[in-house]
């Protein structure tokens, strides 16, 4: 992923220009002239969030004379992608549809450019993190707009009691629920330290669990592991780079780490790691706080020990994989004016804050200023402070699946599960590292084909 840094001067110039544009062409609501809007959005993992979103959308519809209907689509079994494929080919279905970062490149030619909407949002609410621009701004235009709900990231979700008892690691000291981190201690939290802890927890009968199956959750944690070792299967120029020393190094590490994980990780679905920690069988997973939120309801004794932490560091740094969720507008939508109004509305701070509360902090805002309007991560409990570090507090760099390849190639790497298959081949399938890399090179030809 090409990373851009925006200096304060450039940002202020852009913001000033955008503000001037907004004054010259005042935004006029047009939704009252519209009739119906159909939305296909993520069926949220956190109980109660769907109802909150439906309420917000219904109220907006009533206020603007628009009949809004919402379908909640589960992410299990890749159903959003399947539904999007069907709708894109049939040119019928919802008006607004959710798109993960891996879906945007697949459907970019069927999505209406939303530059006016996103520029309105950015000009009024400030900048967006680079990782979201990388995922949603393709071929020179915004193909999608920030969704008010669904974006999440793969934090280390760990049992503080088990880590302390069996591995001697005090996670609350390493990653406290305030700004008083000890940089030296955080620096010491690398993948080797994590493996040492995983070994002790495995010996104690409460192993760490992380999927190595053809599912999105595998992509989540393996992307941040690979990035931490500077390992890329395709580099930022779009060239295949899997046959490299960093990839060999990370695969050697994966072989050593997976000795301590249960064999079932090779067959988990996206709920597998949630069940692993909620049941009390496991000591850590890589996940958003959905597992914790469900544990609060179903297994409170587990929930009160769950501590969300930073990812371990590697030789190339510390990374956190984001699962970005945008909302896009199909080109066959017959109600684009109302849809654009709704997209602007759901990016307003009060809507984002309401969804943050409803999702118990699972959702992560895309607009940076939205982090200023909530205390949800500081307030989330039990345990007090356990959710604080789910939002990035330290030196982690946000990335998405396929990093650091260009967005379209990265999306193909993600949906074809190249990385998780590569890791599974060398850790479970009996392939040598060289054989696994050779397989990946062959597979990546398919990813790169035009």
């Amino acid at each position: 992923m090409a990373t851009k840094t925006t200096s304060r001067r450039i940002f202020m110039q852009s913001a000033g220009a955008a503000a001037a544009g907004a004054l010259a062409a005042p935004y006029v609501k047009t939704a009252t002239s519209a009739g119906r809007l159909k939305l296909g959005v993520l069926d949220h993992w956190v109980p109660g969030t769907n109802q909150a979103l439906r309420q917000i959308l219904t109220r907006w519809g009533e206020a603007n004379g628009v009949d809004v209907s919402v379908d909640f689509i589960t992410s299990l079994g890749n159903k959003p992608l399947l539904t999007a494929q069907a709708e894109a080919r049939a040119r019928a279905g919802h008006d607004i549809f959710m798109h993960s970062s891996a879906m945007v490149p697949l459907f970019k030619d069927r999505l209406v450019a939303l530059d006016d909407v996103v520029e309105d949002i950015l000009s009024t609410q400030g900048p967006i993190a680079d990782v979201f621009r990388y995922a949603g701004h393709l071929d020179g235009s915004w193909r999608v707009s920030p969704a008010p709900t669904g974006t999440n990231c793969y934090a280390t979700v760990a049992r503080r009691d088990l880590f302390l008892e069996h591995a001697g690691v005090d996670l609350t000291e390493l990653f406290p629920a305030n700004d008083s981190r000890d940089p030296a201690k955080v620096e010491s939290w690398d993948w080797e330290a994590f493996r040492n802890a995983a070994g002790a927890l495995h010996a104690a009968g409460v192993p760490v669990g992380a999927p190595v199956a053809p599912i999105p959750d595998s992509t989540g944690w393996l992307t941040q592991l690979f990035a931490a070792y500077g390992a890329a299967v395709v580099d930022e120029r779009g060239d295949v780079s899997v046959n490299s020393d960093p990839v060999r190094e990370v695969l050697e590490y994966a072989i050593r780490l997976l000795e301590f994980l249960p064999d079932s990780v090779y067959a988990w679905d996206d709920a597998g790691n949630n069940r692993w920690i909620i049941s009390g069988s496991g000591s850590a997973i890589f996940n958003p706080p959905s597992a914790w939120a469900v544990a609060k309801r179903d297994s409170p004794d587990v929930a009160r020990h769950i501590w969300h932490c930073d990812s371990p560091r590697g030789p190339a740094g510390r990374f956190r994989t984001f699962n970005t969720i945008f909302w896009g507008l199909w080109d066959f939508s017959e109600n684009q004016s109302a849809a654009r109004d709704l997209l602007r509305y759901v990016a307003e701070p009060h809507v984002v804050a309401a969804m943050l509360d409803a999702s118990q902090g699972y959702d992560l805002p895309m607009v940076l200023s939205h982090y200023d309007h909530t205390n949800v991560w500081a307030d989330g409990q039990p345990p007090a402070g356990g959710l604080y570090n789910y939002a990035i507090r330290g030196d982690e760099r946000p990335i998405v699946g396929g990093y650091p390849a260009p967005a379209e190639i990265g999306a193909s790497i993600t949906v074809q599960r190249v990385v998780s298959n590569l890791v599974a081949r060398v850790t479970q399938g009996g392939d040598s590292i060289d054989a696994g890399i050779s397989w990946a090179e062959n597979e990546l030809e398919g990813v790169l084909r035009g």
Partner: protein
Amino acid sequence: MRVLPPLLRRKPAVAVLMCVPLFALILGLVAYPFFHALFLATLNKAETAFVGLDNFSFLFGRQTFWMVVRQSLLFALVAVVFKALIGLAAAHAINTIPTKGQRKWRGMMLIPWVIPPALSTLGWWWLFEPTYSAINWGLTKLAVPAVPWLSDTFWARFSIILVNVWVGAPFFLIMYLAALKSIPGELYEAAEMDGAGPWQKFFYITLPMIRNIIAITTLFSIIVTLANFDIVRVLTQGGPLNTTHLFATYAFRVGIESGDIPLGAAVSLFMFPMLAILAFIILRNVRRRAASLA
């Protein structure tokens, strides 16, 4: 009584007219999708340019594709053999039950076949669940080590074949049972009078008399088994390591999930020539045997 128009009083015209809905269905649901798939398979990934057979030549260079070919054939071969053997044994067993009591057994044995496979496979998934498998729970209670049903290549393949056999064996059963009932009882009585034992009656009367049904049932089952999708999709999604992908699930992964519809169409069309040749050979043999009997 109204008099039919002259055209409808001609039998050929009525026959053609009554076949129109069938022709429309075949054209709409078989011919059009097939030719559209052929057309798609000749396009580039973006579906903007004709590339001839490039998609097929690209596939032939993929390791994963050839693995899918091998395991599809393995899956179909093993599953069809077991379905045929179990179906034959079960048909014989039911055929020996007095007619009055047969109906309930036939009904019970058909249950796996009539439940929608996606639903019944979900039940199997709960039994095989990677971490909390109900079967493994039972095994561990008996001090038997847990089996990695879905996370190990051998066991994952075993699991999908097992479920396919469970779903498909009743089809063989019902076909074989119908065939067994069509064999005249006099043949067995005559054989018994000549001193034939059970195996001799089976090999010299039963098998020759139901050979055509076996051939047609096997052909039909091979086609359906090779095209299987739901069992793999629900149980393993092609994993671990792509080692349970079949043509249909791999075509789905490549075409729908990865957004490369032309390549997915090429994968799904790959089995068509194989099945066409197989169907031609089996149906030709059936026709010849039928002609020789006549």
